[in-house]
């Protein structure tokens, strides 16, 4: 049996590109949210702690699909009134923006915990040493805490990124033309669901393998100078 894509190959490739784009955009948003969440959760102020805790519990307790739907369909009225205010009628979130926000939110909530663990794993003495050297708090964070957090949280973030990449398939539900949506379109005209969904599955597998390889090299680079304990 040879594989016949009925000329849908380029469409699938375009969909794959969109999937990767969506994953990377959501990743950047999620990293920022996660960092802020972790800082809030480890801060000395009670209200900030509460805010960070609520954010990560609430977002992690609700399914990703529900977030995608909620942000896409739930913000229509809000965006309309916002557009009214700014004098831009017809202002709305497109599927890509909604998907980025929803997936970024989920990634952010999970990475909050990863980053928090990393912050807690940095010995207190490092920060105290910074203070003793007369560094300001932002400088300590930038020069001492952040570079170490990167190394410690990298494996956890890698796992989350693989999950994120698979979750991009959910955005097809709100009509974004990514890999899954293109496969569905191909299925409706060719009537070969198994073929196309299997091809999509293997493209996702390929993306996962690429991400895994990337993570391997990143971890190797981030961990240079540190002997890895045998595990």
């Amino acid at each position: 049996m040879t594989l016949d894509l009925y000329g849908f190959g380029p469409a699938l490739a375009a969909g794959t590109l969109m999937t990767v784009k969506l994953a990377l955009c959501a990743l950047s948003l999620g990293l920022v949210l996660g960092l802020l969440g972790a800082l809030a959760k480890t801060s000395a102020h009670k209200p900030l702690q509460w805010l960070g805790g609520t954010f990560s519990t609430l977002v992690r307790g609700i399914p990703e699909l529900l977030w995608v739907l909620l942000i896409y369909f739930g913000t229509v009225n809000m965006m309309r009134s916002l557009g009214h205010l700014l004098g831009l009628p017809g202002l709305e979130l497109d599927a890509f923006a909604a998907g980025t926000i929803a997936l970024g939110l989920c990634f952010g909530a999970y990475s909050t915990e990863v980053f928090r663990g990393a912050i807690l794993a940095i010995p207190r003495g490092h920060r105290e040493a910074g203070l003793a050297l007369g560094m300001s708090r932002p400088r300590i964070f930038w020069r001492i805490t952040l570079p170490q957090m990167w190394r410690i949280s990298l494996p956890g973030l890698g796992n989350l990124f693989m999950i994120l990449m698979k979750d991009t398939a959910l955005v097809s539900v709100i009509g974004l033309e990514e890999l899954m949506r293109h496969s569905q379109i191909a299925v409706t005209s060719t009537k070969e669901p198994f073929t196309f969904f299997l091809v999509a599955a293997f493209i996702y597998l390929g993306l996962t393998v690429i991400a895994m390889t990337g993570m391997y090299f990143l971890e190797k680079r981030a961990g240079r100078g540190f002997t890895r304990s045998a595990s």
Partner: protein
Amino acid sequence: MNWEVILKYLPRLLDGAILTLELVGFAVAAGLLLAIPIGIARASRHWYVRAIPYGYIFFFRGTPLLVQLFLVYYGVAQFEAVREGPLWPFLREAYWCAILTMTLHTAAYIAEILRGAIQAVPPGEVEAARALGMSRRQAMFYIILPRAARIGLPAYSNEVILMLKASALASTITLLELTGMARTIIARTYLPVEIFFAAGMFYLLISFILVKGFKLLERWLRVDDCQGR
């Protein structure tokens, strides 16, 4: 917030929540049964025994659940043999397709958890069992597995909650579980924020109960205080 609408549709959301629980309950129970042989094979010393479960786990963990659902629900019908076959009455139903896919999906994850737990059993305990004259099989069933069950329980409870959230995907193959029900109600009322919010609260409540339940189970299974984490 339009609370009246939420109250009015609460019974229907509850129906959806019950279907969600049914799907998740079926999937994690059947998945656990399926995962036991896969996990044991995955922890084998022989590479040829390890290879097949490795491929299975790699496929199911590396592809989105949505793709797997579509492969089973829409994809399998492509083959004449399946449509004529004896399993067709089941594979025609979205309900059984969802349960089948979720079971296969979660089995891959649970098998990986089980492998980790089996390998985390202190080697001294296995050696002690062997030294007492237990066969490999006996050591597996009386020593390693009960021990691994306790080690793997926290990770298993995580997986159950992940499956609870993954069950929302069943709404894409026409099932009216919590998310599907919410979408149906929204199609009628045009109030996405209220209804999705209510559905989200249901998910939060269910996962809260699950977390508490597993904590109790963990305490109940604990043999002594120095064990586990």
